[in-house]
């Protein structure tokens, strides 16, 4: 298969931080999101692909063409990649149309205005960045990247400086423009909702390594790691203790699990728990908030130093003790793994 982007054994050292080795491939029209907490290396990975950060090892191919290997690296402007920066990274002394004409020198004034209009910012053609809103600036950053007709679009947290009302419109615009041009997009974000809105495929990073990679629906429904479940599904991950051979003890009882206990977590997805008034032997938690939800209440309760979500039939006041019961079988997963390499 001809991939839009392929990385093999990519490694990059930045001070004490080490990225990788990372290997993955992105399909020709795929929409991929690289997610992970701050400091997980997702931006470094994107910048290595773009050539803005120098990788120490590994091979990068863009549509089959080697742009980086152990013999050398192609300069960023020759890789055929577009890059949308966090805060737009606009040039303060240039107007919007000048931005596009710098990116694509052959563009006439009319063509640049038409392109800006396609991005929904035709009215700012003669304005400088200081006279634009955050959303307009980010749209301009997007149109500037697309003006050079890249083969792959890289987006580094593009919605971070955009206010909530403009986010949806920008998400839709990115999807439409990528579809129109038939190009792959790789998005970096630490926001789960942003990732799910812009991508069909997700790559989860932690500690400089890729811990999971797969379709968004698969990772949401059956994550392979507790970290991915917590990050993508909002799951609470509770520690487990070693029990007899092949078994671990959790707050909800024993279950069989492979691996070292200190590397395992009990994964509690939202909706896995029911809160009832204390009556049986189930673990007790203290309610900290209660809001009406569907045909009952959604309770937030403190359990073993973490906040878990549970359904309750009746309203439970903050401070009251509740007993938690599982609605699904126990799920114990390793915290992270590098098995997606």
């Amino acid at each position: 298969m001809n991939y839009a982007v392929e990385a093999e054994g990519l490694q990059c050292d930045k001070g004490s931080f080490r990225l990788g080795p990372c290997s993955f491939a992105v399909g020709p029209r795929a929409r991929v999101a690289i997610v992970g907490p701050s400091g997980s290396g997702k931006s470094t990975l994107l910048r290595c692909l773009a050539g803005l950060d120098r990788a120490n090892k590994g091979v990068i191919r863009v549509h089959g063409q080697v742009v980086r290997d152990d013999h050398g690296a192609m300069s960023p402007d020759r890789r055929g990649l577009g890059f949308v920066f966090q805060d737009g990274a606009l040039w303060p002394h240039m107007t919007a149309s000048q931005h596009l004409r710098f990116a694509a020198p052959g563009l006439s004034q009319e063509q640049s205005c038409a392109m800006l209009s396609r991005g929904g910012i035709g009215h700012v053609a003669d304005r400088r960045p200081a006279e634009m809103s955050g959303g307009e600036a980010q749209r301009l950053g997007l149109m500037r990247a697309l003006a050079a007709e890249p083969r792959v679009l890289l987006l580094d947290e593009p919605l971070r400086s955009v206010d909530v009302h403009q986010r949806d419109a920008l998400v839709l615009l990115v999807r439409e423009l990528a579809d129109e041009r038939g190009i792959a997009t790789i998005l970096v974000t630490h926001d789960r909702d942003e990732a799910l809105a812009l991508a069909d495929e997700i790559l989860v990073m932690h500690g400089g390594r890729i811990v999971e990679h797969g379709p968004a629906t698969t990772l949401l429904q059956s994550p392979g790691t507790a970290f991915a479940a917590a990050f993508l599904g909002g799951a609470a991950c509770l520690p487990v203790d070693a029990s007899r051979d092949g078994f671990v003890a959790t707050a909800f009882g024993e279950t069989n699990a492979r691996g070292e206990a200190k590397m395992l977590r009990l994964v509690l997805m939202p909706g896995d728990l029911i809160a009832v008034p204390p009556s049986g032997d189930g673990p007790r938690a203290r309610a900290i908030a209660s809001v009406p939800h569907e045909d009952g209440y959604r309770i937030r309760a403190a359990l073993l130093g973490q906040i878990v979500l549970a359904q309750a039939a009746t309203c439970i006041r903050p401070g009251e003790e509740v007993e938690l019961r599982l609605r699904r079988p126990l799920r114990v997963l390793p915290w992270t793994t590098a098995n997606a390499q």
Partner: protein
Amino acid sequence: MAARARDWIARAPFCAAILFVVCFVVAPMLLLLWQTIDSQDGLTLVAWRELFADPQDRARVWASAQLGLASLCVSIGLGFTHAWVTVGRDLPLGRVLGPLGIAPLVVPPIFVAMGFADLFPVAGFWPCAILLGTAHAPFVCVLVARGLRSLDGRGYEAALMLRGRGRAELWLVRAILPELIAGCMLAFLFTVADHGVPEFLTVKGKTWHTYSEGVFSRWTRRAVGTTFADRQSPIVAAAPLVMALLTMLWLALKLRGRADERGVRAELPLRPLGGWRWPSLLFPALYLGAGVLVPVFVLARWALGSAQKAEPMSLAFLRQSFQKAVDQGVPDLMHSIWLALGTAACVLLIGLPLARRAGRGGRLVEALCAVPIASPAILLGIGLVLTYNSGPLAELFGYGFYDGWGFALAGYVARFLPFCVLTLAAQVRRVPLAAEEAARMLPRSALARALTIHLPPLLPAAWSASALVFVLSLRELDLAVVLPAANSTAVRRLANAVHFQHEDWSGVIALLLLSIAVLLPLLPSLIAGRKLASLS
């Protein structure tokens, strides 16, 4: 292959600039250093030991340190108070007086000395300290003003809400401490390295000598044929001074760099002076009066004939003075102007690629370019003379180079390169890296990126830096004394002329020189309406 060639072309300006620094900064300084440890005249490190044992040298070091500290007090008294009462205050005429804080920098220290020497008997330590303190007060003033302008006003307001006005003002002083200390260090550095003013005052009856004077006197004795077989070389003599200055410069740059990292968030609120509103005018009056008005007043008096005791001052005498100035001084003035313009232009061409590298993490480049500030100008001049008067570099450039204007220009550029590199590097740091990375992602040539993306945000700072270099070149005396072609510049001629009772036309030339020095920095304000404050 083509990509590699493009890379090299893109690096060519930086390589050329580094080559210049190597030839005209590093090579002279290394040669000086080499001579201290391996001289054919038998000079060895032993000379250093002897130097410290010499009571005369110890006395000079002590005199320099005392002079530096005393004049620093004067600089703080004048410069700090001027900035303090004019920035963010309701001082009458504060908007005009604030930007004028940089004005005394235009007046060469030798003019300040000449001015005061004409009005008062300036013999002894304290008058010298006051003169040098006055001349170097702009370093304190400009950096303190910059600190006040770049502060986050919300921090002051928080202190005001919590502890009242007095404590809030104290908080403000603490907040601008890095800039204040950096300004003090620069003022101290320039005072200790100055040889022109103490040497000028020697003629007027001074009985004590500074260290840089000692260095220069050794050099001149050596130049007229005295061997230094049993004498310490001027370079060896200067070594402790350079070490001390380098340390101070390093500290000053570090403090200034830390101040750069502070982002502007909210402007400092206007702080009322209350009952001190009108009396506070005394501070700017004193600062500008001593630094600008007194020298200009004396120069104007000279032009009118004050030095001629036989007849009263008159406009007729002014006409005569002007005529004499045209006949005897204008060629030197034109030399000064062309040299200063050439220096300002070359400093920009060489400084831009260096500043870009320095601003993007090239601390070594920044440190290398800053060396000429730490070295007294007289010493850099001596190093240049030694390097290009004989030896392989002299052969490479041709022996005619040493006597020509090209050599003087190169020396001036080397001397003032740090001002351009440090100013522009600070500006480069303020431009977000992402904006430049965005340009790197686009398929455009390095030249297109440099001209369209990198250069425009630097233009205001580039203008300020070149204006500063122009002014400093016009007033440079120490290098003019040593470099052959620069001997015929206006400042050098003026310093000599007053010794020979030529105050009349010297006054006119000096006034013309000051007018030109003021005019160039003011051009953007006059033509484009740019704020005066941007100059500082």
